[in-house]
């Protein structure tokens, strides 16, 4: 599932504070595949990070 997303990152803003949110990433390592998220400020996002859901 969703292996086409490997290595990609998305920023999902918090509902109550859009300037902050979760940076969600798809990772496939040597043993398993997983989704990970880390809270961060929108202002700290690297260039090119997509905001919100991918285009389905």
């Amino acid at each position, binding site marked *: 599932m969703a292996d086409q997303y490997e290595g990609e990152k998305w920023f999902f803003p918090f509902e109550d504070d859009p300037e902050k949110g979760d940076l969600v990433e798809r990772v496939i390592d040597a043993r*398993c595949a*997983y989704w990970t998220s880390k809270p961060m400020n929108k202002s700290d996002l690297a260039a090119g990070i997509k905001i919100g859901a991918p285009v389905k």
Partner: protein
Amino acid sequence: MATIKKDKEAELQELLDKRQYWWWAEQARSPRIDYLRKAVWSKAPKGSAYLPGTKICEYGPIMYAEVFDTYDAKLEPYMVTWSKALAKVNDEMPCFIVDQARLVGYCGSAPHKLFWVPNGAYGLNEDFFNDKDDLVDEEARPEVAKAMEILKPYTQQALTERLLDKRMKIMARTSQTYTGAQHLENSAYCTSQWTYYNKGYNAIIAEIDEHLKKGNEVLYKLGGLPDFDQEYHYLQRMDNWKAMKTTLESEIRYAKRLARLARIIAENFETDPQRKQELMDISERCEWCPANRPRNFAEALQFEIIQTQCRKREKPDGTWPSHPDWWFWEWYEQDVMKDKTITRDDAKEYVCEYLIRAFEYGNCRERQARTLTTGDPGPYVWTLGGMAPDGKLTYNDLTNLILESARLVRVVSPTYALRYNKDMPKDVLKNAFECIRHGLGYPNIRNDQILIQSQMFWSGSPLEDARTWTAQACIVPCPETKNGCLPARYSASALLGTKAVELAIWNGFNPVFNMQIGPKTGDVSEMKTFDEFFEAILTQFKAIHWQAAKMRNIGRYVEEYMGKPHLSATYERCVESGLNCFQTREYGNNWISTYVWMDGMDSMVAAKKMIYDDKKYNWDQVKEMLEKNWEGYEKERMEFVHTPKWGNDDPYADDLIVKMHERIRDDVCLPCGDWGTNSQGCPTAPQCVAAHTRAGILIGALPNGRRLGDTCYDGGCSPGYGFDVKGPTAVLQSVGKLTHENMFRANLLNQRISPAQLVGDKGFDLWESYIRTWCDLGINHVQFNCVDNETLLAAQKEPEDYVELVVRVAGYSANFTTLNKRTQDSIIARTIQEI
């Protein structure tokens, strides 16, 4: 379709018939469990090194340092700062969800990373940082280095070393007598009070708020009557309650972060409808738990995963106390048996996954401790069944389900301690036997009634409390009640028992390390009677045991200063009293593990026989042979090897050894002053995880025929390899001469049994009859390896074909192929008993 099913069944049966249980498990489990089992990153060390690809999570030191390096941290009690550090980790460290998982939550930031608890031992921090395997990611190193510097004075090691004298510091580090100390190991033990905290954290926070409200009134209410005693009472407690609250609130937020991630995946990425629903279920469970009491079986398991993983961010437990068939029974019974909202098979899927999630965790422990549990990420010994406080034997279908799941996932941790009672249900006992027959090495069988008495003897627990015992460590039990729960074991200052015999021979001088470490008990050559030698051994043992106990008591004082916010918040009496978990001390649960012991006892017997009774040699001759490590004296060595040995029901050896145990209890353990208000003394707990291989180079040549470097005996009361020549009943007869209710806190017996002999129902009948004899003799513990040498040798040759082959080491199980060669050989060398 029916034919395919039949073929599959036939294939599975064939694997069972061939006793190829690891391949059977792979075929028998569901695709989801098979994926998760193979996807999990084992944190088991091989020797002292972690397996390739394993990393240490840098967020621990970095986030802790951010909090400890503040103005507030200098003003506040340690526990308050610690709770803020934990909150930062719970709020900000990455969390993840593995594909196909239905139960989520992990201590570290990624599946291959161990969480790094950085305020334990600065020595461990430095060791991680400088590890040859690059455990710390390159880009994080500068920040981690800075964090380590900030945190060093806040580490338990630095705080403890300030209070230890030079001798203690040297002894702790050289491992000649002690195998470490808690301030170096970065590990501690606790019991869990599931029956309290399963009410949900919100309910506990409400209790804390009530206390805080009262405290605020006493301290700050305008117009309130000054009352120093009342004010003092609350001043001592307010910070503790605040720290507990901060921690619980952050753990609720951590669960909600997992809930949000599950929802994001479901709503934005997942296309499979079934998986979408599973993710939404995960989200719902994590929104609800641990904030609230679980509403169903899956929520109960999810609650406990989050509770435990968060607890391990506070401090790596040496073990993972759990009594799952008792704890989760009410939800299982409701869902599976009454409401039938899930099937038994689905419940088994959840349990299998729960075991894999537990196995995923690994202790961040120092190198020596890793060597001691080589091959195992834990160990975690979970407890099953037993006699309930009302005297009713309490086993249930969940006991069976857990054992069935264990055979499917074949993880080396958790393992199980089965509380054995002669009238326990036969189906549960058969199920336990089936696990042993599958070569898992668990459950170990514990004599419930003996251990209840032992709990009452040493800890002064009331009968009802004692009956709730759960394994707190590999073999030592502890109640799970309000007053019985305890935050820590301090056997981290364990000792090498056999060293006492070596020191008695060399007048307190340690010939391996060339140091005078023991008291001068006299030149053994001048000892005219065996009794003098016997007393010298006792004096040496006393010095070591008491020194270890003193170090441990100092360690406890430091831990009381540090506090533990999570553990305190999950103990009822801490929330009620406002004391941290180290300040409560109704029932102590103290012991010092005696790693490596029966080699020394056999040596004592050999000396009596050859020097004092038969007068074949004098001490000068024996000392010369020992000094030369028996080189050039093989014929003489064999004479010593053939002296009477423990484990053969030989009164010559057994009576002396029993007498030594009595004297150790009466002269060494009982006089020890410890902190439990109702407890007495500080007992030994002979066992040795994998210390028997590591100690081979720490203990020199001895009169039992051992040479420096030889692997020591395993277990605590196991006979030496190949020395138990009179069969399994003779082993039990010897071991049964010890009084297991009160001679030590617990003791460990390893036995190896023949898989060929134990096939079919007849095999079970034989084993059950053996266990009944074991129980009648009042022995507290026994565990089995049931794998033949042919398989073990094949696994040494082609390890890649035997990845899930499990063996019992001592106190824990391990994947055979992850053990070092020395430990593998010691298991192959064990006597296979025909019962």
